[in-house]
């Protein structure tokens, strides 16, 4: 190119001003929120060292002598989670079906969905706590609380799955002269069953965590043991219990996740040796 080259001005991005204003406002709110908290911020500097101190207390020499009792309590929590999951699934499948568009009439659907939304919005622990105060603090009532508190989310997954199923298969069964029950059994169920079973297992995974929390407030299981020994400040036992919880949860997550993936992919078909040898055209 010949001649002098002028300075290049990239076009000004005018959106910047609006974004900056928002950033300042949000930042201001955050700072105000932080300042308003009753926290001694000078302590914050010592926090890493404190956490490290406790970490060593807990994990350098965990209390393995109490391991059998911890495993016993862990199984109690798992049982609570399992029965609670079964209860939740058993309750939420029919309720979810009724709440699905195309199944239930409007005056049934909308109130049901409203109830689910309310149960969903209230934290599970509060629902459980309120139920436990009435029915008593036992693992069975814990399971009951888990079952009821989970309906909100579980039923929503049920009706969402049903509504997203393809209509074509149902139409074909109807066209062949099938009743509504036959449509549900042979067109709808094969399509939604894998997703529903997968959600059921996922509920179990969620329940494992919630059952530990319910134990903290007194329903039994590993949470109760944890609350006790934390009160005693018996850090070596607390460390051991944390390890048990972490390992058990991670194992269950891994197994359950693998099963869920297998369910969604579908079973592999074993063609049998004869078919492989055939190899004809269809």
């Amino acid at each position, binding site marked *: 190119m010949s001649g002098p080259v002028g300075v290049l001005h990239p076009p000004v991005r005018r959106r910047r001003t609006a974004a900056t204003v928002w950033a300042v406002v949000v930042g201001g709110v955050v700072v105000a929120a932080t300042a308003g908290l009753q926290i001694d911020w000078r302590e914050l500097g010592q926090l890493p060292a404190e956490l490290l101190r406790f970490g060593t207390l807990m994990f350098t020499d965990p209390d393995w002598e109490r391991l059998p009792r911890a495993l016993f309590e862990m199984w109690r929590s798992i049982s609570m989670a399992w029965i609670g999951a079964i209860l939740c699934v058993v309750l939420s499948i029919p309720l979810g079906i009724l709440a699905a568009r195309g199944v239930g009439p409007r005056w049934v659907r909308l109130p049901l969905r409203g109830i689910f939304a309310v149960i969903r919005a209230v934290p599970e622990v509060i629902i459980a706590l309120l139920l436990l105060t009435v029915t008593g603090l*036992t693992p069975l009532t814990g399971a009951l609380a888990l079952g009821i508190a989970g309906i909100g989310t579980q039923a929503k997954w049920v009706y969402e799955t049903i509504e997203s199923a393809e209509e074509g298969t149902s139409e074909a069964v109807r066209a062949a002269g099938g009743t509504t029950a036959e449509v549900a059994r042979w067109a709808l169920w094969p399509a939604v069953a894998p997703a529903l079973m997968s959600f059921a297992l996922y509920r179990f995974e969620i329940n494992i965590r919630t059952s530990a929390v319910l134990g903290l407030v007194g329903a039994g299981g590993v949470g109760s043991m944890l609350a006790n020994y934390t009160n005693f400040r018996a850090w070596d036992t607390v460390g051991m219990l944390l390890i048990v919880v972490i390992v058990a949860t991670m194992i269950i997550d891994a197994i359950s996740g693998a099963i869920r993936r297998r369910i969604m992919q579908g079973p592999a078909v074993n063609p049998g040796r004869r078919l492989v040898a055939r190899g004809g055209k269809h």
Partner: protein
Amino acid sequence: MSATTTPELTLPPKPRNIRQRVLVATGFLLFTIATCIPAIGGITLDIAALIRNWNNGAGLLLQLFTPDFTFLPRTIGPMIETLQMALVGAVGAAIVSVPLTLWAATPTNPNSITRQAVRTVINVIRAIPDLVYATVLVAMLGVGALPGVLTLFLFNVGVVVKLVSEAIDSADHAYMEAGRAAGGSQLQINRVTALPQAWPLFANQWLYALELNVRISAILGIVGAGGIGRLIDERRAFFAYDDVSVIILQILVVVVLIEFVSHALRRRLT
């Protein structure tokens, strides 16, 4: 149909699905039975006691439908603390989550050792329930909002890092190869190519984490970690379910509002 001259049909062998189904059903049954044996830690199915207790206490639950609004002023302060904790925890986690996510995602961290290490740490963090964190932290640091903020911080980091790193993993990597081909180091490449693409993912999960935080923050007080939870526990212990009902309504309103705002923001940002 006429059957006089039709030949015999040869079927392919039927796959042995029946055996698999029976195994699964048996396993399920055995597992369920094992959860009901008290001797090894299963739960005792004492339905009779359950019904007895229910009949005694059903009146309490009815109180839930008669909220006592004169209680409302006492709930404002703790509610504000709840929201503050939720916000501060989310913001702190948001800052920390960026580098952690980039270390945990395959395209931005080819080093599989550090990547696996970060992922394992995140999985461990996610394996501990929120209230367990709160209980232990309260015992360490004393009652107050600090254990609550830390709990929310840890919970958020677990959620955000896992979800965003998975999203990055399943996204398109082509733009990063271009950066490497032009001779950049990993950090340069990250900063220039991956981050801008990932901002919407981050923003989405940060807002989602904020939604979750509000619900969790409301209960942390039950174990002493600040927020309105302490008030819930106190009123519940006095069987004042009409007061509890007011608190629940308040939580409902706040949760719905935050969800509304959050969804609107997430739609605009992504």
